[in-house]
């Protein structure tokens, strides 16, 4: 008998007579009104929650996206920038950084020399201040949002949902998913939270109304 058969037969004899317990789902799938607190809407809540992780967050109009993006990259002294291949060229009209377009042959070592990355996102969760990347439009490969030290993420309000179950409902589990809540952090030293270990040490979220 091979290992597979041995494990499965041990499982079967262990669960013999265990019945079939029902799954009880009485939890909320949408945001509870009390969770909004003093915030007027989920966009407001999202902004507060992202800020709480000590990420930089700005709410901007879509008409000023290129301008603000250029400003932010300038403020962070970004000299080189990696972008998804399908990024809207107009977003980058005001930046002077050296551009690297994501492509299968761009290596981790090359990305290690790049200052920043700009991406979009698939979904954002208000209550937890989370953005989710799924490798879809304007997101590129997972590696580009990981190796550079600054991640600028553009979040259209249409991507923001209230709760975790709503976000899971919008996602396709078979895509490569990265859930990001604030900059990389650790609490390993005396349980003090320190931002910035291996992932991008700075996260900038641009919410586009």
């Amino acid at each position, binding site marked *: 008998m091979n*290992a*597979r058969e*041995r*494990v*499965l037969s*041990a*499982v079967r*004899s*262990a*669960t013999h007579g*265990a019945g*079939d*317990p*029902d*799954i*009880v789902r*009485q*939890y*909320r*799938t949408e945001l*509870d009104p009390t*969770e909004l607190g003093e915030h007027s809407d989920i966009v407001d809540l999202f902004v507060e929650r992202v800020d*709480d*992780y000590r990420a930089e967050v700005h709410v901007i109009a879509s008409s000023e996206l290129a301008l603000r993006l250029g400003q932010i990259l300038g403020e962070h002294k970004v000299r080189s920038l990696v972008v998804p291949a399908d990024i809207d060229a107009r977003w980058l009209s005001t930046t002077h950084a050296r551009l690297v377009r994501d492509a299968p042959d761009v290596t*981790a*070592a090359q990305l*290690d020399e790049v200052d920043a990355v700009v991406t979009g996102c698939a979904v954002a*969760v208000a209550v*937890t*201040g*989370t953005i989710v990347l799924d*490798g879809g439009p304007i997101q590129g*490969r*997972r590696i580009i949002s*990981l190796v550079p030290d600054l991640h600028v993420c553009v979040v259209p309000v249409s991507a923001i949902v209230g709760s*975790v*179950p709503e976000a*899971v*409902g919008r996602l396709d*589990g*078979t895509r*490569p*998913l*990265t*859930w990001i*809540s604030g900059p*990389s*952090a*650790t*609490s*390993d*030293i*005396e*349980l003090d939270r*320190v931002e*910035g*270990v*291996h*992932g*991008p040490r700075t996260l900038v979220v641009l919410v586009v109304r």
Partner: protein
Amino acid sequence: MSSRQLSRTDHVGLHPKPGEAFLGMPPFPQAAHVALGDDQLRRNLGHATSTIRTKRLRAVGEVPDWEELRLAGASIKDHTLANLDRYLIEFEAAATAAGATVHWAADAEEACAIGVAIARSHNTSEVVKVKSMATQEIELNEALAAAGIDAWETDLAELIVQLGGDTPSHFLVPAIHRNRNEIADIFRDRMAEVGRPAPDDLTAEPRRLAEAARLHLREKFLRAKVAFSGANFAVAETGTLVVVESEGNGRMCLTLPEVLVSVVGIEKIVPSFADLEVFLQLLPRSSTAERMNPYTTMWTGVTPGDGPQEVHVILLDNGRTRALADRVGRQALRCIRCSACLNVCPVYERVGGHAYGSVYPGPIGAILNPLLHGVSDPHDAALPFASSLCGACYEACPVAIDIPTVLIEQRAEAVREKAGHPGPPDPERLGMQAAGWAFGKAQRLNRLQRLAARFRGVASRIRWLPGLLGGWTRYRAMPEIPQESFRRWWSERGSGRSGLDTVDASADLLDQRRSSSERSQRPPQRRSSTEQGQPPPQRRSSSERSERVETSEETEQ
């Protein structure tokens, strides 16, 4: 407090080295005694656990449907475990269809052999690792080392533990037993031996320590060909694996190398992708007390052009089916390794993780180890007793594992196991036999009680008892022997009054000892635990209650 001072070399015995993993460790009672004498350890632990307890209550209190989520989490796991064969096969089919290679391992040896063979087939002399309980449990690093392959731990705390040459003492913050100055020393002394040295001007500031780890590990991430990970969840429906982390070292390992090998305990399965909506709420708030952890990665087999192009999954039993066969204990397999039970446990808070002698410490370890291995080993047999049964762990558990009930069941099993193997005369067993004899007949008990009452004066002066009984007198005064037994008092006064009056009278007596606020809040059967002369409590949170209970453990039992 013990007067014994530990020198630095004593830490070797207390913090076991990997490889000889816990083999030289004494069973829990002795190990706990040594740990209690280590003031530094107790300070580090006390600070860390009290910080995280407070934060967790806040993070959990924010969620209006927390109890409903707990119930869902517990029931999803119970349902999955009861149908585990079906879901394992479904997972295997979905993961395989998505391009992963699924392996099965009945025990640690088989799992390590598969992992080593994969690493060898790529002619690599080193691999990077994401922190994983399963790979620690099977001692994968040691197996790789024996094959001439270095396994680099990339989690900051695991790096501290690995460079410091000891073993983790907590699931979530494995270096919780080290403070910042000790960590800075370890980095200065050891980083250069295995790669990029620590910066010359390294200080003990956490930010600087984290940066030193970032620089040290970055070169390893960039050149690694093979990575090993565990998984927090494995989705049967889609074949998806999930890793929940904070630092980004997980993303590095799961994204950069060409080959990814994940060791996944068979209890990690959840039926559908939608079930993650429950666990992604329960886990971060229970473990790091955050609304969400910084990074969660989900991958399904191979994504062409993105991430590792060769993906392996090793499904691991290693005692899990043994635990699954235990009707009461199988609920321990619901565990999502959040470590909330460690942080609220009054025993863990004082002795730390190493005293448990296993990669799974704390309350969950106290039940999981005997379930995985049985209680024939003295280490595992001692663990069900490493608890005051205060119940704080059950209250904190996000999947509602009733740890105290399982502990009691296992204590019974440990006693049965011992009874089945008669050894040298054992004072505990003799004492129990004597008690059995005394309580066997009412008249006999009566006579013995009268006899005992004659020694009241002597007993009240006893300050010290020998042997097993010394465990009582070391920390407590001898209980007073009453002038007459309850049975005698009852029979003498019972003739003149009705039974009902008598009950009321004794209830009044109890009431006088309690404050009025207490009476309105606690059910009558809990009264005994409050008669310790403590101030009248106002509304209590669960953590405050757990602290109270630990001061009155005898009455809770």
